[in-house]
Structure formats: structure tokens, C-alpha cells
């Protein structure tokens, strides 16, 4: 065929691809070092290990995206050797590849995590505290992109994920380099490949210049779980992973509830002194959504779209998903419908839409996920939507819930096409939520976008408690939207307020004209949900004004200014009912006379929210927070703890203390900057 010839001929013309000499040498040197480690004495390995302790610390703090990969690989290669050394310490035979431990996770040939399924005692010398989720067994796991060779025939089938399946079927794969005995588990924190959208904090705004602030309401809570997970791994989280509004919104607040469903939420505002700045005040806006009673709960039609790729078989991922879904089942009504579609591993329909009362069948399907019992088919997200449509309930909640550790290969390769599909389905009434699992592979930026387009929530599930919170305790909120495309617009009164700063919501800022434009999407509010927003405002006349008045323009009242300073601001909220197309408006003035004079008298919920906001800003290393200490934050939170039925607030206070300790031990650890690159260990 001429085309074939033309194409082939063209390809031949391509200049040959020559590897860089230095890269080649380095690669081969490292490989030889690995070879020597494998075949040389164990003692050598131990010395190496000791020398690597320091590099581990350094690598831990590195964010891969910030710097050149090569040195990372040098370090990581070194770590890998260290890990191998430790293995050799315990193995009796060099070439015995039979998996010895119960907890050896099977390599699928798709993902390479090398993670150990069961957490256990950690090697204290590396300064890693025990944590609920099993950490990765090798630092190499997430940074190296190597999979084990696939044996040709069973590429479609998978060997059992859990190591307690017959060891025989595992023989086809070489074990990951770190094979751990039960008694000796090396936990090397892996350099993170988590991806977060970088964003600077909202800048201070001058009211005279920019009196109007507009943003989309956000009830995602993924950032809080992620921050918690980081702290539990003894690391301060990367700045970009901390979204202050998500930390604040993680907690349920007892704001005043709306009277009825007609106006599905109620907004309350208060103004009180800023805990971290004597000269400014906080404007607190709290919104509470209508609660849905068990009896009035609408019918649920849910499709779970589950990532079953190799990397999902860690204990803190797919098994957690399975447990979470089982928990969720308990809260659904017998007539609700559930279906399960899998992708990226065994792809296909694991469970056709089934009524919840058919519990046995659903449980069987959930348990069978591990064994890859899905029918063939690689449509992923399209299958999921199709199943949701099959049982579409126009009066109920129709939702696809995507659970993944970062693999969004759901059958559509183009990101834009994927977004468009999600938007389209959202308009036809099928929403999408995203549940993120695991660390190091977590693609947060995309998760946010998809959830936003799907009018759903993005949550990060780091442990079973969180799973319970998202899928059970807050099931109504997570599943039942009561308002969509919710936007907030605040207009500040230049006579009363000189400057303002919106805390958080950096990724949710809208243009002023977007507020009234119904075509512009915004966030959802679920049943019973609360949404909190905080502005730090500098009242006119305060000595803390940061920006000087203009020299050449006199400080006169803008033409048409209403009255004098009896209102700080005017809050407007626009929303649509879940099936609505046209938005509705709620407004609320914020009166100066209602200002609360001392912090102690501020409402408890608002005080707690400001403590969380302070924490988030401190983690983001913001200058506005000044010297406000972790201790002060903990104290403020403690005073506003309230009933704390589920213990979320106590847990928060613990995290604040933990953050303080971590920050003390490693000064400057909070800042992600490339560490000096150590020499790779020299092997003799």
C-alpha cells in the first residue's frame, strides 16, 4: 500500500535517537551497583543503609515536580539499594523468589507500588511514626515507573491481589525488590508524585478599587483528609495541597437551619475581632442546607465506577473502597439501586443495577472485585452513565461515584472530551462525585475539575473513619444535592471597609459578571451541608490599613454612595434548585451595629471556623497570619470545641499539635524547596 510505504519511508527519515552519554553511563553504573548489592555480602548492605538514612530525610521533603528528576533517581536508586540491603539481611537464600510473607502484595504488571499490604512495626531509625495507613515499602515505588514484565497470556487475567492466594500463581513475576519478613518492615516514605494545582493565596483587595468579591461555593473536603494524612506521616503538607476553605468546610457546623425546603438554605453572618490581628475583623458567612429526614429521602440510583488497576490493591485503597461501600449499603433504602463498573484493571460491569434489598448479590459483587470477576468491556465511564440512565429516577438522586487513586483512564483519552461528557450528563441529571484514595499517586487537580463539572464532591478517603464520614454520616449531603450552582457575591461598603481579603477559595474565584450569568457553573450544596466563608476586613479608620490612600485622588465618598457606614457589606447568594435551570437570589446585609466587640463573645461555630482557617493559613505559610502560633490556634479551637459528637474537632486539635511538633523538629520543613543534592553512594 502506498500509504504504508509513504509512512514507513517518512519514519526512516527521522534522525536516529541517540542517548546522552552521561545518562547512559549513569544508568549503567546504578544498575551495576544494584547488581553488586544483590550478589555481594550483607554487611556491605548495612553500611549503605546507614548512609542512606540521611538521604531519606531529604527525599521525603522533596516534591518531584520542583526539580530535575535525575538526582532524584540517583538518590532513589541509592535508597533502593539500601532497601535491598535490608532484605538481604533477612533472607536466607539469594535466589529464592517464593513470596514468603503473608503481606506481600502481588504485582500486577500494571502498577508498581511495591507496597506492603499490611502495616506493621516500622523501623524506628527512619523517624517514621506508625500510621494507620500502610506506607509504601520502597521509596522507589512511586517515582520509578517500572512495571514487572507481563506474562503474555494472562495479561487479561490477574493473579490474586492478596498474598494469601496461592504463591504458585505468583511465580511468573519477580518480587519487588523489598521483600519484607513479617518481623522487619522497612518503611521508606516515598517522594510524592501527588499533583496539586498551584495557587497563590488571595491578595488583599482595596474596597474602593474592587468592592465586589465573587466566588463559587465549595463543599469539597479532600484537602483536609490529605493534610491529615500528611501530618500522620510526619510531614507538613505541600502548600498547594492546603486549600483553606476545604479545611474549614470539613467540619459540620451548627448554623441556623432554613425553615423549609422552598428556600433550601439559610445564611447567617457575623463580624468579630480577628484572632490573629488586632486591627482587623473577620466577616464570617455561614450557610446551612436543608436537612433531609430519613422518610423524605429521595430514591438513590448510584453507579460506582471503580479503578481496579494494580495500584489500587493496597490496603488503603480498594479494600477500603469495598469496606466503605458496604457501610454505605447500610444507609440506603431497600429500593435504592446500585451498580458497579470497573476500569483500568479488569474492565467491565461488575454488578448490573441491583436493588439494595438484594444485599447478598451486591456483597458478592463487592467481594468479587478483588478476583477480577467482571465481564469484558472497556467503556468505563460511558458504561457507568449508561447504567445510571437505565434506572434514571427523575425524582431521585442519580449519581456516578468514581473511586480512584489517580488513574482516570476511564475510557476517554481526551481530558476535554471527558469534561464535556461529565457536564452533559450533569445537565441531564446524573451527577458525578470523586473519591480519592492512597498517597503518592493522587491526581488532585483533575479530581477537583471533574467533580466540579459533575456537580459533585471530591473527597479524599485516607482511612475507614473518613470513609464512614463521607459515605455514611454525611451520606445525605454527599449524595443529595439541594441546591446547585451556588455562588456568593459580597459587595463591601467603602465607607465602612477599607480593605478585605477572602480566606481560601482561591480556586473558586468567579468574575463579577459570572454571578448573574446562569451559564457559569458553581458548586453544590448537599442536604444538611454547611458552607463557611471568611473575609478578613480592615474597617475604615483602623490603624492596620496596609495600603495607603492615593495621593492624587481624594478620599471622598463615591458618587451615589448610600448613607454612611451602617453596613459593612451586602451578601448575595445565587443558587438553582437541583433540577432548575434558572437561578434564584438570597440577600443579606451585614450591619455594623451587629459587630461583636470581643472575640470571646463571637459565636462558637464562627470561632472554631476561624481557628481552622488560621491553621490552614499557617500551613500555607502566609504572612497575614503573622506570629499566630500553633498553640494559639489549638487554644482557640479548644475553647470552641462544643459537643463534638464525632470527635472531628478533637482530632483537629491533635493535628494542630502534631503540626507544631513536626515544624519544630525540622525547621523550615514546611517550605518545599529543593534540598542540596547529595552524592549518590559510592559502591566499592
Amino acid at each position: 500500500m502506498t500509504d504504508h510505504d509513504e509512512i514507513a519511508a517518512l519514519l526512516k527519515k527521522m534522525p536516529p535517537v541517540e542517548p546522552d552519554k552521561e545518562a547512559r553511563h549513569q544508568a549503567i553504573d546504578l544498575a551495576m551497583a544494584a547488581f553488586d548489592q544483590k550478589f555481594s555480602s550483607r554487611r556491605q548492605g548495612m553500611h549503605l543503609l546507614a548512609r542512606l538514612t540521611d538521604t531519606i530525610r531529604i527525599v521525603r521533603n522533596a516534591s518531584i515536580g520542583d526539580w530535575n528528576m535525575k538526582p532524584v533517581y540517583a538518590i532513589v536508586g541509592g535508597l533502593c539499594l539500601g532497601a535491598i540491603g535490608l532484605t538481604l539481611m533477612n533472607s536466607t537464600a539469594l535466589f529464592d523468589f517464593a513470596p514468603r510473607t503473608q503481606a506481600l502484595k502481588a504485582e500486577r504488571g500494571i502498577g508498581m507500588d511495591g507496597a506492603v499490604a499490611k502495616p506493621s512495626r516500622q523501623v524506628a531509625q527512619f523517624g517514621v511514626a506508625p500510621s494507620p495507613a500502610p506506607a509504601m515499602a520502597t521509596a522507589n515505588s512511586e517515582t520509578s515507573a517500572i512495571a514487572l514484565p507481563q506474562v503474555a497470556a494472562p495479561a487479561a487475567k490477574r493473579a490474586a491481589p492478596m498474598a494469601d492466594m496461592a504463591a504458585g500463581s505468583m511465580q511468573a513475576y519477580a518480587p519487588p525488590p523489598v521483600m519484607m519478613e513479617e518481623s522487619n518492615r522497612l518503611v521508606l516514605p516515598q517522594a510524592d508524585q501527588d499533583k496539586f494545582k498551584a495557587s497563590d493565596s488571595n491578595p488583599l483587595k482595596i474596597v474602593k478599587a474592587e468592592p465586589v468579591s465573587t466566588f463559587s461555593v465549595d463543599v469539597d473536603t479532600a484537602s483536609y483528609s490529605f493534610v491529615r494524612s500528611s501530618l500522620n506521616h510526619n510531614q507538613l503538607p505541600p502548600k498547594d495541597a492546603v486549600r483553606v476553605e476545604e479545611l474549614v468546610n470539613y467540619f459540620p457546623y451548627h448554623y441556623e437551619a432554613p425553615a423549609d425546603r422552598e428556600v433550601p438554605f439559610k445564611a447567617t453572618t457575623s463580624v468579630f475581632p480577628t484572632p490573629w490581628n488586632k486591627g482587623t475583623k473577620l466577616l464570617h458567612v455561614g450557610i446551612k442546607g436543608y436537612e433531609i429526614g430519613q422518610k423524605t429521602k429521595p430514591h438513590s440510583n448510584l453507579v460506582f465506577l471503580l479503578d481496579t488497576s494494580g495500584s489500587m490493591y493496597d490496603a488503603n485503597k480498594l479494600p477500603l473502597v469495598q469496606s466503605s461501600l458496604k457501610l454505605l449499603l447500610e444507609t440506603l433504602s431497600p429500593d435504592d439501586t446500585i451498580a458497579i463498573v470497573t476500569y483500568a484493571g479488569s474492565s467491565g460491569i461488575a454488578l448490573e443495577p441491583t436493588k439494595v434489598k438484594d444485599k447478598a448479590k451486591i456483597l458478592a459483587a463487592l467481594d468479587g472485585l478483588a478476583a477480577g470477576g467482571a465481564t469484558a468491556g472497556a467503556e468505563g465511564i460511558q458504561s457507568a452513565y449508561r447504567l445510571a440512565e437505565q434506572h434514571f429516577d427523575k425524582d431521585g438522586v442519580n449519581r456516578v461515584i468514581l473511586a480512584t487513586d489517580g488513574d482516570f483512564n476511564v475510557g476517554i483519552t481526551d481530558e476535554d472530551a471527558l469534561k464535556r461528557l461529565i457536564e452533559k450528563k450533569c445537565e441531564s441529571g446524573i451527577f458525578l462525585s470523586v473519591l480519592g484514595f492512597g498517597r503518592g499517586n493522587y491526581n488532585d487537580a483533575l479530581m477537583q475539575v471533574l467533580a466540579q463539572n459533575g456537580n459533585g464532591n471530591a473527597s479524599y478517603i485516607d482511612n475507614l473513619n473518613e470513609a464512614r464520614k463521607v459515605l455514611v454520616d454525611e451520606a445525605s449531603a454527599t449524595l443529595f444535592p439541594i441546591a446547585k450552582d451556588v455562588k456568593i457575591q459580597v459587595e463591601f461598603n467603602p465607607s465602612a471597609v477599607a480593605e478585605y481579603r477572602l480566606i481560601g477559595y482561591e480556586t473558586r474565584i468567579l468574575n463579577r459578571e459570572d454571578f448573574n450569568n446562569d451559564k457559569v457553573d458553581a458548586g453544590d450544596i448537599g442536604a444538611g451541608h454547611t458552607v463557611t466563608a471568611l473575609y478578613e476586613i480592615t474597617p475604615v479608620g483602623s490603624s492596620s490599613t496596609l495600603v495607603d490612600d492615593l495621593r492624587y485622588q481624594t478620599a471622598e465618598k463615591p458618587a451615589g454612595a448610600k448613607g454612611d457606614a451602617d453596613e459593612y457589606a451586602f451578601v448575595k447568594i445565587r443558587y438553582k434548585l437541583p433540577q432548575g435551570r434558572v437561578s434564584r437570589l438570597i440577600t443579606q446585609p451585614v450591619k455594623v451595629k451587629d459587630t461583636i466587640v470581643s472575640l470571646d463573645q463571637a459565636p462558637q461555630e464562627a470561632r472554631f471556623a476561624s481557628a481552622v482557617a488560621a491553621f490552614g493559613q499557617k500551613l500555607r505559610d502566609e504572612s497575614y497570619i503573622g506570629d499566630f502560633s500553633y498553640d494559639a490556634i489549638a487554644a482557640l479551637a479548644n475553647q470552641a470545641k462544643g459537643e463534638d459528637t464525632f470527635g472531628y474537632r478533637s482530632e483537629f486539635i491533635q493535628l494542630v499539635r502534631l503540626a507544631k511538633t513536626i515544624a519544630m523538629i525540622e525547621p523550615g520543613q514546611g517550605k518545599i524547596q529543593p534540598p542540596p543534592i547529595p552524592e549518590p553512594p559510592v559502591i566499592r
Partner: protein
Amino acid sequence: MTQEDTILVRRAAGGDREAYRRLLEAHYGMMFRVAYRYTGHRQDAEDIAQDVCVRLVHKLGSFRGTSSFTTWLYRVVVNACRDMQKHRGVIKRSEDSFRELEALGQEEQRDGQRQVAWLYRAIYSLEPSLKETALLVLAEELSHAEAADILGCKESTVSWRMHALRKQLKEVMGSYHDRP
């Protein structure tokens, strides 16, 4: 070459340092080249090639000799590339990737090079499965059977993909010729 490889592998797996080095020297070029063609990024390709090298000693034990060593190694590299793409999170559009290649193509002003760059852009925008197939069959000039072995699918699947591929590429080349 295959025979020699098999012997080297056996020796290397048994601890023969020299044999192992020779294996690496002989195949590094291929590892890099395949990774480079797959990802379109020199840096990524070097990282992947280095990773494969470092991990190779542990995988040798799993090489059964049922296929040739090169086929087996192709598979290792392709999987490593797939993993990197996956760990990057999604299906990024490979804008950066073929920019590099295009730069290569623009070094020479001859029309042929531009056409090649155009073609590569087309290949890179293909669906991953087609792209992988193109890489192995067209660029590496492997047989359908061997490509199938590496990619873990049926030979007929490869043939089908090549057919679909050619149709798409034909359109692309057509648009190239039609450009103003």
C-alpha cells in the same frame, strides 16, 4: 544475537558481573529509544531507561526464555512508559512531547523533515493503544506477532490496529498535503 542474549541472561542471573554489564551495554540504546519514542521526552526517556536498568537485575529471574530477550525487554520498557503516563495522572495531551520532536524536524528545512514532524504529531495524538502499536510496528519495525507478544494482545488485534492506524494517518497526511 538471541542466543547470545539468552546465555548472557543466564550468566547474569547467576551473578556474572561481566555478563550483566554486556547485556546493559547492548540494550541500553533500545531502552532509551523506545522510551523516547513513546513519551516524546528526552528527560522522561532517560529516567525510564535508568529505572529499567536498575530494576533489571531483579527481573532477570522471571525471564523464562519463552520469547526472545529483546521482546521481553520491549515489554518491560513499554510497561514502564505506560506507568509513567499513568502516574502523571491522565491522558495529558502530549503538547510538550511533540514540540521536542518538531524541533528536531525543524532543524533541517527540508520539506521531508517537516512532514515527519507532522506525522509524529499525528501519531502522538492517537489513542494510547494505537500509538504503542505504531511505535513497535512502524518505528521499531517489529512483526505483528512480536508486537502482540509485547503488548499482551492477540496478533489479529495488532493487525486490526495497524489498519485503523493507517486510515487515520492517511487522513493526516492528506491534510498535510492540503495545507495552504
